C-alpha cells in the first residue's frame, strides 16, 4: 500500500477516517515500522500540546471575565461580585479548590454510584454545527488516551515525592488544609496483591471532562508505576482494548457509563491482570 499522506495520518490519529480507511491506515502502520514511529511521534506531540494548555482550564476565571460574560462591566470598571451572589449550576467558581472539587465530586460520584453524573462541559450539546456522536466518540477516545498517557508520564516524571502534583494525598492527614480528600465511603481499588502501593490521586480535565487519576508505585522497577484513570463517558460498554503511546501501555475499557484506563510501562499481560482485579473490585462496590 502507498504510504498515507500526512493529512490522512493526522486524520487517522484524530479519529476522522471512516472505518474502512482507518483499517487501511492501521494495516500500513503495522507493516511499516518507520511509519509506526512517525505516527507515534505525531501522537505524542498532540498529547504534549494538550498538556501544555490543560492548566488553563484549572485556573480561576478572573472576575472581570465573569462580569463581562454577565454584561456587568461598566466601561473600564470591573464589577465585583458580592459574597452572597448566587451561582448557577454551570458557573465555574472563582477559587481553584472549587474548580478541583467539581471534577472530584463528579468522578467519584460516578465511580461510587454508577449514576450519570456529568459536568456541564460534557453535557452541553447545543447542536447547530452538526454533531456526529460516532465520529466524536472515536476522536474523543483517541484524544482521551493521548492525554491519559501524557498525564501518566508527567506524574511519573515528577515522582511520588512531588506532592505539588497530587490533589488527593494517600494520607488524608497530610492534606494540610488545601488538598482534597476522597470521600470516606469511596472504596479505593486495592492493588497491593500486585505489589502496588497507592500514592495519591489527581484531578484532571481531559477532553473537557473531569477524570480522576490514581497513582500507584511498586518496588519492582521492571513493572514501574501504574496509574488508573476513571471518568464518566457517554460511550457504550467496550471490552478492554490494548493501546500504546510511545513506551506507555494501556488497557482501556468502558463499563456502565464510565471509561477506565490502566496505564504503565509494564507489559500488557501485567496490566491485563490488574484490569481483571480492578473490574472485579469496581463492580463489587
Amino acid at each position, binding site marked *: 500500500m502507498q504510504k498515507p499522506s500526512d493529512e490522512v495520518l493526522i486524520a487517522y490519529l484524530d479519529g476522522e477516517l471512516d472505518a474502512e480507511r482507518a483499517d487501511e491506515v492501521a494495516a500500513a502502520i503495522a507493516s511499516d515500522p518507520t511509519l509506526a514511529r512517525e505516527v507515534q511521534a505525531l501522537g505524542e*506531540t*498532540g498529547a504534549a500540546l494538550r498538556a501544555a494548555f490543560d492548566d488553563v482550564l484549572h485556573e480561576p476565571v478572573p472576575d472581570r471575565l465573569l462580569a*463581562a460574560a454577565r454584561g456587568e462591566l461598566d466601561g473600564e470598571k470591573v464589577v465585583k461580585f458580592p459574597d452572597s451572589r448566587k451561582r*448557577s449550576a454551570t458557573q465555574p467558581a472563582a477559587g481553584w479548590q472549587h474548580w478541583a472539587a467539581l471534577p472530584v465530586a463528579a468522578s467519584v460520584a460516578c465511580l461510587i454510584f454508577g449514576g450519570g453524573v456529568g459536568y456541564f462541559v460534557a453535557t452541553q450539546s447545543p447542536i447547530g454545527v452538526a454533531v456526529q456522536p460516532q465520529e466524536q466518540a472515536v476522536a474523543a477516545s483517541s484524544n482521551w488516551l493521548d492525554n491519559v498517557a501524557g498525564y501518566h508520564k508527567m506524574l511519573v516524571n515528577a515522582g511520588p515525592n512531588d506532592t*505539588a502534583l497530587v490533589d488527593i494525598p494517600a494520607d488524608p492527614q497530610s492534606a494540610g488544609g488545601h488538598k482534597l480528600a476522597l470521600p470516606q465511603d469511596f472504596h479505593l481499588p486495592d492493588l497491593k496483591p500486585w505489589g502496588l502501593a497507592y500514592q495519591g490521586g489527581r484531578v484532571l480535565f481531559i477532553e473537557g471532562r473531569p477524570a480522576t487519576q490514581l497513582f500507584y508505585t511498586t518496588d519492582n522497577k521492571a513493572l514501574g508505576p501504574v496509574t488508573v484513570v476513571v471518568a464518566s463517558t457517554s460511550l457504550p460498554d467496550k471490552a478492554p482494548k490494548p493501546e500504546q503511546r510511545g513506551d506507555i501501555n494501556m488497557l482501556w475499557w468502558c463499563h456502565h457509563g464510565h471509561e477506565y484506563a490502566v496505564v504503565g510501562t509494564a507489559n500488557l499481560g501485567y496490566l491485563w491482570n490488574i484490569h481483571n482485579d480492578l473490574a472485579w473490585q469496581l463492580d463489587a462496590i
Partner: protein
Amino acid sequence: MPQGNKANPDPLSVRQAGSSDPAASGFRPVSARFSDQLVAVLPRLRRFARGLTGSAVEADDLVQAACERALTREHQFQEGTRFDSWMFRIVQTIWIDQIRARDVRKEEPETEAERIGSDESVRRVEARLALVEVRLALKELPPEQRAALLLVTVDGLSYKEAAAVAEVPVGTIMSRLARARVALQAKVGGGRGSKNDAEAKR
C-alpha cells in the same frame, strides 16, 4: 440588541448590563440562559485564546472583548446551534482583526519564565520547560494553523466543527492540521526535517 428579551417581564431571566442607570450606561438586557452559557464556556475560551496569543493577559483581554461582542450580538445566536463553536468563532475573528490591525503576532516569553517558580523541584521545572517549549513552538506557527490545532487537537472539535468555526472547507482544516502537526513535531521532537518547516509556512 436582543429584542425578545426586552419585553421579558421575568426579572430572574434578564440581567441589566452596565451601571444601575440604564440611560447612562446604555441598557443592555442579557438573558440569564445566554450569560450562563457564556460563563460556562469561559475556561475553554481562555485556553483557546491563550494558545492563540501566547500571553495570559492578552488572552483574557481577547476573551473579554469576545464576551462583550457576544452580548451585543445575542440575537444573532441561533438556538439549537453550538454555543461554544459560536464563541470560538468570535474569539478567532477578533484575534485575526487584532493581528491585521496591529501586526503583532508574538509576545516575548517572559510570562512563561515567570510561571516557573524557583522553589519547584528540578523534575517539575523540567516538565514545565517541556510544556513551555510546546507553547513557544505553537506561537511560531502561522495563525490559521495555530487556530486549527487549538480547536481540534486541544479542544477536541471535529474537523467539521472546526471548519465551521474557521469558516473554511473541511479539506482546508485537514491540510492546516497536517502541516501544523508535522511542523510542531519537528520543532519540539526533532522530528522530520526542514522540508516540513518550509511547508509549514505556506
